[in-house]
């Protein structure tokens, strides 16, 4: 016989049992202790709607015992009560509870202030449900994306009828929490579900069992939580057919174990064959009374069926008697189970979650208490676009003078009255003050009661509505929600393995992994300055622009004079945004009938979006090819760069054929390269853009041939120093979001004579304003620290953005921000113990002789 363990006790499991069925059969009546008063709570809804039976299953807290199938060897623990749910020392709170109205804790423990943190710890331990398994391995649920024409939530009669009809008009997905019909006790309903399920399947509908919808969103779209996946559904329309729950009855003793909502009791008796007691009283004001009574009887329970208002239930460990105001008068019954079918509470949370007109309801959720035939026609009508308007059940079950409104949070009628008297006079505010509807069931039971209470108290129309419906409707696991979020794209260049095997420290640079250093930064710098070196610059954003309007586009968009670039030449390029601020920088090479543009590594997507936006908005004829991933790039830099290339190429590499700054198509070691003479590191250097698939071949050839000059590759650390020695700015590190070119000393890169370019008007406007801040070169008399404030007479006027101790520049140098003081920029500053003097840049080879080779 299969079995599970509940708090260590072995319980037999029958075929088809839920955890609740196995436990109830074995005599368990108290499943949880309530949040504040530690009252006993037993099975109540029996349909997964309330939070009375939350248990920990195999270490995972918050599982609903009433809908979780029991399996052999399962370990189940009750989560509340100390030392156990059956014997709870804190049950004393129930006696004290009436002296502790809503807000009690906050008011009483608020003074002195040191008391609250201590009180909070004690209160926290006494309340709450399960314990998070902090040592459990992180569970990650995969996320699946589905697009359909129609999503139907709920595989009951209305849902399946909707699915069958909707399948004639595109794809349909039906999601149901359980297997179709598995939770229905009514034979006619089960038969209809079988018939309609077959019809829907035959019509092509996809049926997803065991998937609960936790939310409906704009789009419309929905999230479904399955046993081992999260499904995000994009649908053109959503039909919510989640049915109705019996209304939660509020009367003294309404939360005693042994008080059931009708369909849950029927399921326990008719599906699991477990008697809910010896003698049950069924109080039914709906049409389902006789049917429920029959279902409860099947397991051998003696049943009394009455209609009327429940005035009071009494009992200790569980219900022992009930008083009902029947049409014939007040009657008291002894019983050990009380089954309620007082009215209908449509499960309409998903429907109320969105204003999308494509989200409609069908069946019980919009026509509470409808017959099977009505449910079927409601479903078919919804599929045809004639959905029923939601209709409230009538008459709404009366609340008595006391009893628990919100079972999850232990909020009674008394608490609502008390809060109202304190001045919290709207349903939303009542909710926030009392926490009613804020428990694990998310107001499934009590959200109507709260609104009804506000209405009965005479709240203004705007203050008596239902409180906002929000996801999740069913409690997902944290792992379900984190799904694919941990995934982070990581891009590697074609030379990644070469860097790793050369012992490089690989750094994250945006999405890219790039070599920081191969071990000896000083040696890498010397290789560039004195011999020859290579760097993998494949991460650069690279674009090819062709078409009859290519030059027009570039001229209109960038501040440089594109027409002045002769074919075969290249220019430094600034990209300004419409506010005139520097957005990106790079290089523009004029090919013979097109243009090649490179910009910073992190900005490829943004640059492409930006260029395409202008092509589109200006209606230009330009072909833009983003070659970032297609091309690898290696920068060959150093006084012997030309010598090295000459050993591997038969092309003309002379200063005339490939001047600085210029470009040529050459072949190096058999690899076709677009060579651009650049100057970022301040030595003769050539960026070789080549097909990415041949990067390794080219890299190896360069390193082999370079051994004549004791070649070394260099990484980002060396590059940072090399460019600083030239006074070149690193965008984002040295710049701020509101830097126009003049602040950076880059005014020379703007062709102000052009009639129009993006940012021109803004620059004109800012030109009329005094320069309040600028980036300057700095020399230091001691080792500087990046980020250190710069001060004059103790007042901070700037900050160091880059610095290094440079051999080539003859000492510590840097870049930093300065603010104007009384319209003047100071020249000498203090950075802690170090004195900084403003200095002209470049610090190295200011005439730029070396980079022309």
């Amino acid at each position, binding site marked *: 016989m299969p079995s599970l363990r509940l708090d260590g006790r072995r319980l037999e499991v029958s075929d088809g049992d839920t955890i609740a069925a196995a436990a109830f059969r074995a005599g368990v009546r108290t499943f949880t202790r309530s949040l504040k008063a530690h009252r006993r709570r037993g099975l109540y809804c029996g349909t997964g709607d309330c939070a009375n039976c939350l248990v920990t299953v195999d270490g995972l807290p918050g599982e609903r015992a009433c809908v979780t199938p029991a399996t052999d060897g399962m370990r189940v623990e009750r989560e509340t009560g100390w030392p156990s749910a059956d014997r709870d020392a804190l049950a004393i709170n129930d006696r004290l509870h009436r002296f502790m109205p809503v807000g009690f804790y906050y008011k009483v423990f608020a003074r002195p202030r040191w008391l609250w943190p201590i009180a909070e710890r004690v209160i926290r331990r006494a309340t709450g449900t399960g314990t998070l398994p902090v040592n459990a391995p992180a569970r990650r649920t995969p996320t699946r994306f589905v697009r359909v024409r129609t999503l139907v939530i709920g595989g009951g009669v209305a849902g399946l009828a909707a699915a069958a009809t909707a399948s004639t008009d595109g794809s349909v997905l039906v999601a149901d929490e359980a297997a179709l019909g598995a939770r229905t006790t009514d034979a006619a309903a089960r038969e209809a579900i079988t018939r309609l399920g077959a019809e829907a399947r035959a019509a092509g509908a996809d049926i997803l069992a065991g998937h609960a919808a936790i939310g409906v*969103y*704009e789009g419309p*779209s929905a999230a479904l939580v399955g046993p081992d996946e999260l499904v995000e559904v994009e649908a*053109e329309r959503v039909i919510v057919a989640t049915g109705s729950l019996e209304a939660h009855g509020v009367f003294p003793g309404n939360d005693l174990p042994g008080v059931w909502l009708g369909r849950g009791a029927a399921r326990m008796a008719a599906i699991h064959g477990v008697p809910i007691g010896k003698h049950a009283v069924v109080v039914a004001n709906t049409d389902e009374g006789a049917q429920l009574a029959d279902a409860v009887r099947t397991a051998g329970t003696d049943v009394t069926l009455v209609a009327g208002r429940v005035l009071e239930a009494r009992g200790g460990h569980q219900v022992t008697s009930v008083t009902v105001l029947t049409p014939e008068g007040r009657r008291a019954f002894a019983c050990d189970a009380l089954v309620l079918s007082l009215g209908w509470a449509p499960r309409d949370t998903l429907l109320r979650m969105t204003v999308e007109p494509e989200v409609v309801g069908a069946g019980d959720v919009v026509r509470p208490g409808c017959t099977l035939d009505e449910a079927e026609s409601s479903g078919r009508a919804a599929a045809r676009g004639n959905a029923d308007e939601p209709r409230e059940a009538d008459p709404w079950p009366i609340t008595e003078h006391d009893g628990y409104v919100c079972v999850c949070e232990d909020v009674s009628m008394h608490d609502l009255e008390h809060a109202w008297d304190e001045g919290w006079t709207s349903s939303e505010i009542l909710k926030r003050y009392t926490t009613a509807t804020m428990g694990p069931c998310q107001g499934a039971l009590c959200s109507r009661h709260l609104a009804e209470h506000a209405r009965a108290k005479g709240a203004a129309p705007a203050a008596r509505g239902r409180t906002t419906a929000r996801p999740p409707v069913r409690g997902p696991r944290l792992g379900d929600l984190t799904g694919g979020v941990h995934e982070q794209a990581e891009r590697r260049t074609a030379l990644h393995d070469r860097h790793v095997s050369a012992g490089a420290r690989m750094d994250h640079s945006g999405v890219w992994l790039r070599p920081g250093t191969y071990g000896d930064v000083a040696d890498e710098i010397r290789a560039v300055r004195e011999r020859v070196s290579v760097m993998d610059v494949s991460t650069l954003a690279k674009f090819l622009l062709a078409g009859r309007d290519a030059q027009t586009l570039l001229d209109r968009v960038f501040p440089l004079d594109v027409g002045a670039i002769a074919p075969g030449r290249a220019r430094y390029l600034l990209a300004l945004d*419409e506010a005139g601020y520097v957005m990106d920088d790079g290089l523009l090479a004029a090919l013979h009938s097109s243009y090649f543009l490179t910009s910073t590594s992190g900005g490829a997507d943004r640059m492409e*979006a930006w260029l*395409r936006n202008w092509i589109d*908005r200006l209606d230009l004829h330009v072909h833009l090819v983003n070659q970032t991933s297609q091309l690898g790039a290696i920068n060959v830099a150093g006084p012997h760069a030309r010598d090295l290339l000459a050993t591997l190429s038969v092309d003309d590499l002379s200063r005339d054929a490939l001047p600085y700054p210029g470009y040529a198509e050459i072949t190096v070691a058999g690899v076709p390269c677009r060579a651009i003479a650049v100057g970022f590191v301040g030595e003769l250097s050539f960026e070789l853009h080549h097909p990415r698939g041949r990067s390794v071949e080219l890299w190896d050839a360069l390193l082999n041939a370079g051994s004549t000059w004791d070649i070394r590759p260099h990484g980002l650390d060396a590059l940072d120093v090399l460019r600083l020695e030239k006074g070149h700015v690193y965008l984002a590190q040295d710049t701020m979001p509101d830097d126009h070119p003049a602040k950076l000393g880059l005014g020379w890169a703007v062709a102000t004579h052009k009639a129009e370019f993006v940012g021109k*008007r803004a620059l004109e406007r800012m030109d009329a304003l005094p320069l309040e801040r600028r980036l300057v070169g700095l020399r230091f008399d001691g080792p500087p620290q990046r980020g250190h404030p710069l001060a004059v007479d103790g007042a901070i006027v700037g900050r160091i953005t880059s610095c290094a101790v440079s051999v080539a520049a003859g000492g510590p140098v840097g870049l930093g921000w300065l603010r104007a003081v009384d319209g003047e920029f100071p020249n000498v500053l203090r950075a802690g113990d170090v004195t900084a003097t403003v200095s002209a840049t470049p610090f190295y080879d200011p005439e730029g002789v070396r980079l022309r080779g």
Partner: protein
Amino acid sequence: MSMVVTCPTCGRRPFTEFSFGGELRDVASPDTASDFARVYLHDNADGPQEERWFHLLGCRRWVTLTRDTGTNRVEA
């Protein structure tokens, strides 16, 4: 999850595939004085607004659409 944008090339796609390009504005200003308003003084409408979206994780095409900023409903 949530909004759906209709791309002329790719059809209905979740908005997470797109990057937001802001309100639709003029591409240029007639003079320097009015440029400030064009760049900085957006309408920030509560209701239908014409705006630009870029299908970054798709065909990389720009789309101009009208979105109700209150309901996130997109009109084609």
